[in-house]
């Protein structure tokens, strides 16, 4: 079941690269380091997912002594357009439109039901 991403979806990889920030695709940053096994990990190819550094909300790499929660924005955001992804309807649940514009307002359906503020779970109640 567990297969390396890149080999599974070469075309997706190419397309994703056009959409992701330079770091992941250009292989120019991302920290680098060595796994416990001694193998050097670093962004070696466009499909590389071996080098995801866990980071906290302040953008600091997390170490074993840290008690700070990890931050998905800081961890995945350097390579992926998290803001665009988080405009999907699962994340917004009625808060924004396809274009990412905030749409919550009183009487969303313009039929007098002032208490309905959106068309999704955040607001339509």
């Amino acid at each position, binding site marked *: *079941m567990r297969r*390396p*991403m890149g080999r599974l*979806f070469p075309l*997706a990889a190419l*397309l994703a690269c056009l*959409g992701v920030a330079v770091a992941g695709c250009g292989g120019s940053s991302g920290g680098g*380091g*060595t*796994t416990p096994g*001694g193998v050097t*990990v670093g962004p070696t190819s466009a499909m590389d*997912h*071996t*080098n*995801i*550094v*866990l980071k906290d*909300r*302040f953008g600091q*790499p*997390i*170490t*074993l002594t*840290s*008690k*700070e*929660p990890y*931050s*998905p*924005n800081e*961890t*995945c955001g350097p390579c992926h357009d*998290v803001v*665009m*992804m*988080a405009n*999907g*309807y*699962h*994340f*917004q*649940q009625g*808060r924004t439109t*396809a274009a990412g514009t*905030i749409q*919550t307002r009183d009487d969303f*359906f313009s*039929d*007098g*039901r*002032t208490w309905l503020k*959106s*068309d*999704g*779970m*955040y*607001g*339509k*109640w």
Partner: protein
Amino acid sequence: MAAKDNANVSDIDKTSFWWAGLCSICHPGGGPTEYDRDGHKFFDVVTGEFGYEKLGKTAGDVTLDGDYAEVNHMTGDLRAAPWDKTGVAEPDCLYCHRSDRMIDQGKNMNWIWRTAVLRSKDKLKDSQGNDVPAYASASTAAQGWFSGFALNPNVPAGKPPMATTLDIDYQAGVNSGSLMVGTDGNLYLPETLVTREPTDYACWGCHLTPDLKKRGRVWFDPVKDIHYAGFNNLLDADPSNDKLAVESKACTRCHPSDGDHNIAKGNATLGSVRNDTDYEGFRTCRDCHDPSSIYYDPNATPPTHPVHTIPKHLDVMSCEMCHIPFKEDAAALVVDNATTGSTIGYNTAAFLSADPLDPTNADKSRWYPQFELKTDRDGQVRLFPTKLLHSVWWGDWDQNGTPGDLTDDTIAPLALWRVRGLTTGAPLAGVTDHNGDGKPEVNTLAEIEVYLLALESNNDKHGTPLAARAVLIKGGQVYYLSGAGGVASFPYEGTGIHTESSHPFSVNHNVRAAGEALGSTSCGECHTQFNGGAPTTVFDRLILTDPWDVNGDPVYEPMRDHTGIDPD
């Protein structure tokens, strides 16, 4: 939901902070758990500022702000939303994209940990008693990266869990193999931890409760769902290729997603979110089963049974209608928010039975969907299976200054925290249990009158009248105090008033084996002419329209009368 700007505490129901603690357990983070309605982070941990401060406002300016206030739903008390203590919940990428899941005795632990932490709101501590930012820590908890975790033991059974203690500890991730320590001392995610398609368990954590409760839907059951079985190779003779439940990625076969992260969907009967994406990328029954479709799945048998060849059949009936012929798991059928101001629930077993023509039959092993007309992907209007949820609730009727004209009227639901201020969570004096099911219900005109009078003559704890013109919404009727004395009622349908006492939840999953489809035994399941003139199990099945009339008895109508589709 609470407006952004409010003039009065009594206008505030569900605020963003409240939503983040209760509703967002079925939300993957980001959006409304991260940003306010002006687009600012509720609290920016890097600058130490609340979102409103970015607009030059002070705490005093936002005491009634739907993003920065919270009303306690038990007491009605108002407080400032402590986003600075909870932090915000960011988009939780790994929640869905983690390749393996922690399933403990059937329990979806990743969902439970995340849920429990979100629900603890500003009360989460570590074992030393230090505050832990619950909303910000939910995604860390979801990965199991902690050493100490304690649940509040006072949460009643059946309610989602609530954490009291969380000790974030990344050593737990290293121990379980979900984190690696680099030689620089930093922590890394192993490459295999991330999956492109989420597993079914990732989806099911959030979808289980609504699906089971509202639709009697189950998953991971090869008998009750032919596609779960088929997509995981459980139907062939070779046991060695079977996939385990934790490995199953069946949801995304029909609901794939693209880089936009809009998981493909259809046109759900009640859901209206992002309707502009309806059917985009979605795989319908025809997509996979029709050999002329570009998405035709060579493993999917094309329908050939004669029932499919009558053109009128496929014009009028959806595939789902015949292939999801019954349900075996009870679903919620009635929610009574009126009698006590807290929800009293009734499931399908209370009003339906395994005999579609006799709801009182003691055999409750099955129940049958009803059908609603809905526009299908090809633009054709067809019958789709649904399960109504009936709701009984108090509203405030505003005639908009034109008593003769109902079209511009509104009926606003009363927030339950305000109703409970009156009822204190118990039925008002005089309410009895007319149908003898052990649960009291407001149903006689005299009982309804007691409440309507009380709602019109009492204030909530902030001194605001509970309702100017109180009404009860139940069974398609609006009950109100008539000027002539006593209670009168009228059906709201066709008046132009946008109100509802029944909510059709679509029943789209759990396709059964072909041999169980409607019509597999006889054409007489639907056509009286092929049934010796007798009532048919499909079109004469009884569907509930009102859980209790003025005598306490349920009211039903035959399916035939419901949509106008009436095969001879």
